[in-house]
């Protein structure tokens, strides 16, 4: 996201607009919190720095402590920088039965960082993840919003090499 869109003390204008569009569909403003955090996280490059959390709290008139409580509960909200490509390798049972741990190992070896660290060029970060609901494609991983299934270690590395 560009610096200009991240202006000082609030949500970027498009984010505000996206949240406002949702208001009529919920009987309380509190119910907008998860959608608002998803929107904010997209605008802040995939994670929620403190300023994003305060901005959402202010926008919805909620206590910051409450918003922190929600952010820390959910696995898809991040409080630390992530790579441009966020990689989630499934290691739940169906994927493990089909070699998911070897995929995780191959991803770690290729990226040369540990889980939750970002590669020096800022491109990638990875984590192991619980079942992503695509066990028919096991072993699988998710990069950004996309699913990649029927992996082998070699195929996984090829996919990583093909990322911009």
């Amino acid at each position, binding site marked *: 996201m560009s610096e200009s869109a991240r202006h000082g003390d609030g949500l970027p204008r498009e984010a505000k607009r996206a949240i406002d569009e949702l208001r009529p569909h919920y009987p309380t403003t509190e119910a907008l919190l998860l959608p608002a955090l998803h929107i904010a996280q997209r605008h802040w490059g995939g994670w929620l720095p403190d300023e994003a959390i305060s901005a959402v709290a202010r926008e919805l008139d909620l206590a910051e402590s409450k918003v922190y409580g929600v952010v820390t509960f959910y696995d898809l909200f991040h409080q630390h920088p992530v790579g441009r490509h966020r990689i989630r390798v499934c290691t739940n049972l169906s994927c493990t039965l089909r070699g998911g741990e070897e995929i995780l190992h191959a991803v770690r070896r290729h990226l040369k960082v540990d889980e939750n660290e970002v590669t020096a060029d800022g491109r990638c970060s990875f984590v192991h993840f619980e*079942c992503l609901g*695509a066990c028919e494609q096991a072993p699988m991983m998710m990069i950004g919003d996309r699913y990649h299934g029927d992996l082998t270690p070699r195929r996984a590395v090829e996919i990583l090499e093909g990322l911009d």
Partner: protein
Amino acid sequence: MAFEPILLRNAGNPAVHEVSGYRKAGGYEALSKALAMEPEEIIDAVKASGLRGRGGAGFPAGLKWSFIPKGSEKAKYLVCNADESEPGTFKDRILIETDPHQLIEGCAICCYAVGASTCYVYIRGEYVAPALTLERAIADAYEHGLLGEDVLGSGFALDMRVHRGAGAYICGEETGMLESLEGRRGQPRIKPPFPAIVGAFAAPTVINNVETLCNVPHIIGRGAEWFKSLGTDERNTGPKVYCISGHVERPGVYEYPIGVTLDDLIAAAGGMYRGRALKAYIPGGASAAILSDEQSGLPMDFDSLAQAGSMLGSAAVVVMDETTCLVRATLRLAKFFAHESCGQCTPCREGTNWSEMILARLEDGRGSESDIDLLQRITTNMSGTALCALADACVGPVRSLVTNFRPEVMQHVEQGCCPLPRQSIFEPGAVS
């Protein structure tokens, strides 16, 4: 086994993603029919069909709908459970991806029947593409007057929204889901009051799984008698989408009348992976007790699997062959439950963590026989002692391991290591 699919009948026909294509395939006829019926008649038809919830607990759908107070002008809600986080389950994703209007139609009929004017589809946050598919279909339905102020000119108003979760298994539990929908941590509520009386935003609320709702247009369209003609008996009726994964040649969704056997499913899925022998299977997702190869001929319906000490759950069938270490498999599931426990209730928070730690010790060969008894005791203390069923979900596989497969656990203790060391599943050329 030949069976003309019902819920998946439109697979391979992407035209049904649009209202026009779905209508050509007979879609939205059931909604028109329903809108000409009395709401009570619809509830009666769903009751008569015997449809039971496909989300895990198998609760009769028509009965659940009948709990919604009638005649009050208060807002009512339908929350469709598309959280689909039970490990091994992927049918709801495929139902949405292949035929989004089938779900919209089912939701609309349900809302009309119970008098709800708002429907939220709570979809797990990872399902970004399916959420978009559904949102596009909803927008198209609005344009065609199938949703909105005046559904098909009937005067019935319905607003439908897709609401994204953010990665928490517990939000699949119905009251955790309501908390999450309302903008809070997904910690389950104390019941009673039940959601039918005090649900979303303190209003009467029906919560149903995606597949449950997808059945509804077919019940209205073809009748309860037809629905009841499918399945094992009158308590186990209708079509069922089974998710089969693990050690079979062609993992995927397979739709049959409820009550096929594992043997049938393995055959449908192209046989066992690389022709190996079956060792054990999970019939209904990570929360279900593990069954052995000797139980592969059981009808996979609610009651037969419950009698065998397991459950149909979400019909996520995980097949494990002779190379699988069941201690390791159970450890993997216990780890999941320990990670996903919301932490509210002590028996669940502590029990899931201790289950994981003790299983890890046993798998490494550092465990003792008394650990096995300890696991057994922990599962007893976790059963029915927490606010929601997550603790019981962890008990499912853990208890079945120590009761049905104790000799394999003992081998770990006696040999001081895992008797089935890990081996790569990949051909050498696929590795690097």
